[in-house]
């Protein structure tokens, strides 16, 4: 509805002439000179039908995009969008929904004025919206682009009921475990490759007078990510997906086993900064900062690749020298070549969805799925994409390249964060449901059975989409 359907130019020969005319009378300030040139150029290449790199002229089109990014991320994303504007002549306006993007989008849909493209971090919401018909299946061209650029795990992530509804634009690797290299050196240890060794390293660190792990338990989602990595590495992707859709109960033996494993760490007060009470008062931000500040309070902190932003912005530690990461340690028996130490990768990401079937909307999503759009932001840093066609050299440093490699080589062993897959009433509410139950578990790690029962009770309260 927000796309103004003015004249759409199809013919190659007409394109240049019409673009000139339109540039003269166009009300959208897209920079007429360059827009004319690129409009003509893209019009010419559109006839060749190649999928990559060529964008048709969308002069006069107006698109609105909703996503969660603010601040630097917003600036970076707007650079991506303005490149699209330059190449197509369309004008794109960006709106940030902040951390409540899902709510903002639902309000806009209810109000009858949805944006054209929305980038959502919750696949659970995408499934719901797809079933309601609020978001539309993506075009065949985008499907080709995704099939060519992304691994099968990523493709199936965006599929609802056999149709592709979304494509991951910005991904984050939630299987990274950050450590303070100075602390590891003092204790004389190297990154652990499995959970048993991880616990042994914790003891070595503790003996050396270094608190091993910083846990940001004030935010429940960090604990959920911990549990999900343990569960994914122990039970495997198939069980993980069943649990994510509540096809198995939270009282199942696999959950009990993962909670028990998690309890081996949480149960030892000396392994956590400030013990359980201290961990519950520590936000994610502080948990990262206090691991790399001087003097450091812990040797290791687990969270996704985005921890790097927190490290560089709040401490003097340098990524790649003072702060490094190792893949989340899986069970000792399994051996995996890529991804986490048992071959899996837990991810999160912002997924582009279309709120209408207008060709301009589809063009924008296809552009976002293409390596050209990824490269722009990748250069700026703080960005990862699972797009195989984006060369690793586009990333600013070795650590980011390593993370990107993890995402690409994970293949099918890539699973979206379980709390994001769940209905928000269970897996996305501060102080309730999943997150609160994990915080209660941090308080009382011996209570494995009780925690599982409480999780199941909370999960049963909400409606799960199939």
């Amino acid at each position: 509805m927000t796309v103004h359907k003015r004249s759409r130019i199809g013919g190659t020969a007409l394109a240049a002439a019409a673009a000139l005319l339109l540039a003269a009378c166009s009300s959208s300030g897209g920079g007429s000179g360059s827009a004319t040139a690129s409009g003509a150029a893209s019009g010419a290449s559109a006839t060749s039908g190649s999928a990559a790199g060529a964008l048709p002229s969308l002069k006069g089109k107006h698109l609105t995009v909703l996503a969660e990014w603010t601040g630097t991320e917003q600036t970076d994303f707007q650079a991506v969008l303005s490149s699209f504007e330059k190449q197509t002549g369309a004008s794109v306006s960006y709106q940030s929904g902040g951390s409540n993007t899902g709510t903002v989008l639902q309000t806009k849909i209810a109000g009858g004025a949805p944006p054209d493209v929305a980038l959502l971090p919750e696949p659970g919401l995408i499934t719901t919206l797809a079933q309601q018909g609020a978001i539309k299946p993506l075009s065949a061209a985008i499907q080709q682009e995704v099939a060519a650029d992304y691994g099968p795990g990523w493709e199936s992530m965006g599929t609802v009921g056999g149709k592709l509804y979304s494509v991951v634009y910005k991904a984050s690797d939630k299987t990274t475990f950050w450590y303070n290299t100075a602390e590891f050196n003092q204790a004389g240890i190297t990154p652990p490759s499995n959970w048993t060794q991880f616990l042994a390293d914790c003891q070595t660190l503790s003996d050396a007078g270094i608190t091993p792990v910083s846990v940001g338990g004030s935010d429940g989602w960090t604990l959920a990510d911990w549990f999900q990595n343990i569960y994914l590495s122990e039970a495997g992707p198939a069980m993980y997906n069943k649990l994510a859709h509540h096809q198995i109960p939270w009282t199942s033996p696999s959950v009990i086993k993962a909670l028990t494993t998690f309890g081996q760490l949480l149960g030892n007060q000396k392994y956590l900064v400030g013990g359980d009470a201290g961990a519950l008062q520590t936000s994610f931000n502080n948990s990262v900062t206090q691991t790399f500040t001087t003097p450091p309070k812990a040797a290791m902190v687990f969270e996704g690749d985005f921890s790097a932003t927190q490290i560089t912005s709040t401490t003097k530690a340098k990524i790649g020298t003072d702060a490094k990461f190792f893949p989340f340690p899986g069970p000792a028996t399994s051996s995996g070549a890529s991804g986490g130490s048992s071959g899996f990768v837990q991810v999160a990401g912002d997924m582009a969805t279309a709120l209408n079937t207008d060709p301009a909307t589809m063009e924008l999503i296809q552009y976002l799925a293409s390596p050209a759009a990824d490269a722009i932001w990748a250069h700026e840093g703080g960005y990862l994409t699972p797009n195989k066609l984006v060369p690793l050299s586009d990333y600013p440093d070795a650590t980011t390249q390593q993370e990107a490699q993890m995402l690409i080589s994970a293949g099918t062993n890539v699973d979206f964060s379980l709390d994001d897959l769940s209905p928000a009433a269970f897996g996305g509410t501060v102080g309730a449901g999943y997150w609160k139950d994990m915080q209660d578990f941090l308080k009382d790690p011996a209570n494995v059975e009780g925690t599982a029962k409480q999780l199941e009770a909370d999960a049963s309260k909400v409606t799960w989409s199939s």
Partner: protein
Amino acid sequence: MDTPAAAAPGPGEPPDSPVPGRQPGSAASATPTEPAVTEPARTGPAPTGPAGPGKAGSSRPKPDQPRPSRPKPGRLRPAKLRPSSQGALHIPLRVRFGFLTPAVVILLAIIGWPILFSIWLSLRNADGSSFVGLHNYVSIFTDPSTLTALRNNVIWLVTAPTLACALGLVFAVLAERVKWSTAFKIVIFMPMAISFLAAGVIFELVYQADPNIGVANAVVVGVHDVFAPASHYPNAQPRSTLGYRSDKAGYTSPDSYTAGSVATVPLTGYSVLDLPKSAAQAVTAKPVPGEITGTVWLDLVYGGGGSPGRIDPGKKGTPGITVDALSGTTVVAHATAGADGTFALSGLRPGTSYHLALPASDFSQPYAGLSWLGPDLVTPAIIVAYLWIWAGFAMVLIAAGLSGIPRELQEAAKVDGASDFQIFRKITIPLLAPVLLVVLVTLAINVLKIFDLVYIIAPGSTLPTANVLAVQMWSVSFGGAQNQGLGSAIGVFLYLLVLPAMYVNIRRIRRERRES
């Protein structure tokens, strides 16, 4: 205020009107351009309407109909438009309703309709698709998290307004006694200038657990450490594989020693970087007849390595650590480790075996302060933040009330020999009662809808403990669950809770109006 204005028109206004050109200032300059178009339109059938286009002088209003010709519509005061007893002014009903309409429409659209819509939503399910009757209201009283919120609202309602009022009273009375009362009042009132959100962020920092960040804990830890200094080797312990028994008193060695033997006490759990500068390379103690000698050292080298339990090169003594000789449970000898970690326990009976004990005072963890935002203290901590903001407000209102109290009463009481406290208790407080009631009721309404401070200060882990209804309303509606039915029910319930306070306020305003 109304009454004199309404009575004024007949005799008060006209005199300046019949003299053209005499009016000073804006009135005179406005005359020539008198809005001929707007004026008649606004006043309807007012007789001066047709005279508008005439010359300035001739269009002057006649003495008996002054009001409709006021130069600017903005000056029209409703009070003056009331038909006087002489019937000098008559405004038709439809015009009056015409004036009322915009206000009524706006009120209905932005207040009336939302209330009705909320009530309607509160009777429906999470996404508003089906009717569920009073189910949502039942949930308020059965859902444990909403009940916690309700309980906290009661705590807030009972404590916060009363404390703010009491503090305001104390400050107001104190401010009367000091010379620099204006400065004092400004300082106390200053937090009102800060938004709740900013105040929340400030207090979130104040209550941080880390004494290096949170000023509250910095004070608590500072005071505590004056009376109970921190231990020398916090968290250190004998190497865990050696089987030292640990209890509240400290660590006891599994082996027993007799006079003349040499003991080794390897410690771990303490960073080699934190050792005191005096610490020197640990050495094995020499046996001395009649004494138990030994070494207590940090059994670690930087970068790992070394053999556990052995005094390798690079391992340093832990000077200052106390080592006791235990016979049964009584301490019979006492020694302190030197720079190289060696100690000697003397005065022992030969042939008797002793256990070594390391008192806990050497290893106790540094005092971490209070967990302000932990489950026990979070609500009181947030209430303190609230008082910081609102005590100034209470003080200003009460100080205004105080200045209105007739001094004679207090002076008379003083002459009669009443003490300061008696005067305060028996004269000042009763006379201030109406003001105190205003403050209490205003703060009560304010406290019932408290949201920002709780939402910002309480960390995610204790938000369920610190929950209040307004936060719960937001959480269930927008914080993930998207249950706007339950959220609306909580909103309506909150509205009902505010009604009694509003009733008290309205009744008071009515009475005041009547009295004046």
